[in-house]
């Protein structure tokens, strides 16, 4: 990267936008191209999960605490988790998969990560939008405050993107991240907040789980879906703090990794 003055900031930004745009289009082709079922899984997985768990609840006759509809609860909870998992799991392989593109000086590691994660975010948002529409039309379960769902998804994307940049940085130095990330995302599922609500828990435990930033995100998304029908706990400022810190660390890490990367 050549160091240039502030005068070159705008052209540089234009180049970056161009590169991220090109990378996103290319990523779109390889991820969701004609030959694979990427698009399909995006919808099938939350639908299968929500459908199966909804059925279990229906057959067992147990309602969810707060009388929430089981289908919307599992599906709407699963999709932000799906975004988190998708971005994190693809973090450690991001650099290796695009290494040859670093032959173009314009292409930075940050561009590569941005392109991948924005695409993942857009795809997941599309799926969420369809499910929300579906539940609204079929069951009359319209979200009370859709803006909160949008903010929640953006926060989740920002959080996951930050962690993914750190994982990608680590992948330059060791293979460990590539091996353990999948395991970790599955094992962490119970504590992310995807499948429980804070008000279900005893006070002590509530205080503990609210340290976990993603718990706030899921609560915010449910607040957007259910409104005041159930109590929700979230602090957007707290999550933003995490997002900012992780992103700064992640970008610093990528800068360092780029220097040490041998192609």
């Amino acid at each position, binding site marked *: *990267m*050549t160091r240039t003055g502030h005068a070159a900031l705008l052209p540089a930004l234009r*180049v970056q936008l*161009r*590169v991220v*745009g*090109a*990378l996103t*289009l*290319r990523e779109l*082709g*390889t991820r969701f191209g004609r030959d694979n079922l990427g698009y399909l899984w995006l919808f099938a997985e939350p639908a299968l999960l929500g459908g199966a768990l909804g059925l279990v609840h229906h057959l067992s006759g147990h309602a969810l605490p707060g009388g929430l509809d089981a289908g919307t609860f599992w599906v709407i909870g699963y999709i932000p988790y799906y975004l988190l998992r998708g971005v994190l799991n693809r973090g450690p392989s991001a650099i290796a998969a*695009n290494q*040859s*593109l*670093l*032959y*173009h*000086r*314009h*292409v930075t590691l940050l561009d590569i990560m941005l392109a991948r994660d924005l695409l993942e975010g857009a795809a997941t948002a599309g799926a969420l939008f369809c499910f929300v529409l579906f539940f609204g039309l079929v069951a009359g379960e319209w979200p009370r405050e859709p803006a909160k769902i949008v903010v929640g998804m953006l926060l989740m994307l920002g959080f996951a993107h930050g962690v993914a940049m750190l994982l990608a940085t680590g992948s330059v130095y060791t293979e460990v991240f590539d091996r353990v990330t999948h395991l970790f995302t599955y094992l962490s599922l119970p504590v992310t907040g995807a499948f429980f609500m804070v008000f279900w828990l005893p006070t002590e435990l509530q205080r503990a789980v609210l340290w976990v930033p993603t718990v706030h995100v899921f609560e915010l998304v449910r607040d957007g879906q259910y409104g005041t029908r159930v109590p929700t706990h979230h602090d957007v400022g707290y999550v933003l703090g995490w997002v900012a810190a992780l992103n700064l660390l992640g970008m610093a890490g990528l800068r360092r990794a*780029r*220097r040490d*990367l*041998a*192609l």
Partner: protein
Amino acid sequence: MIALRDVRKSYHTRLGSREVLRGVDCAFRPGEQVGILGRNGAGKSTLLRLIAGVERPSSGRVERGMSVSWPLGFAGAMHYSISGADNARFIARIYGKPLRATLEFVEDFAELGEYFGMPVRTYSSGMMMRLGFALSLAVDFDCYLVDEVVAVGDTRFGERCRQALAERRERSALLLVSHQAATVRALCTSAAILDGGRLTRYDDLDQAIAVYEAG
């Protein structure tokens, strides 16, 4: 102009740190055709990658006052899971070139036939080289970095590359690394020798080749 200022590069290997370049100082001016001669393992490709900005020096600086291509060779610069045509589109987008004109130029120059629409990973190494070369000519750089392979053989494509480079002589600079003096003689007007991690430039091509062949 491209200037290298006390450029050093070491790699960490299992046997510890190995310094490949030990303080390279030199400048390349627009319109120059310089052959960089060096034995296998002398660090020629490393030098090109540093000039291209693909890798960063461990210390020292590389200054680029003109647009510099990526190192043209067998590897890199393309995405292997997409087709040659998609690669051309990608390159056009990141370098801000017109899509259709780039596609047409690359398809015509690379002569890949129906392979142009197939994933690059199905290509032979010769086809990849042709695609890479066509892509870089489509971008139209001020300086081309060539990693000897292009000059390989007396193929028709090799001849076309030589021609394309010769046509650009007026405006483009060329840095070619090779271990073969003959290649450098065919394409360059001056030469430098990379040995022991240092680069020595000679204004006289014959003198450089004489020194290289004696070494």
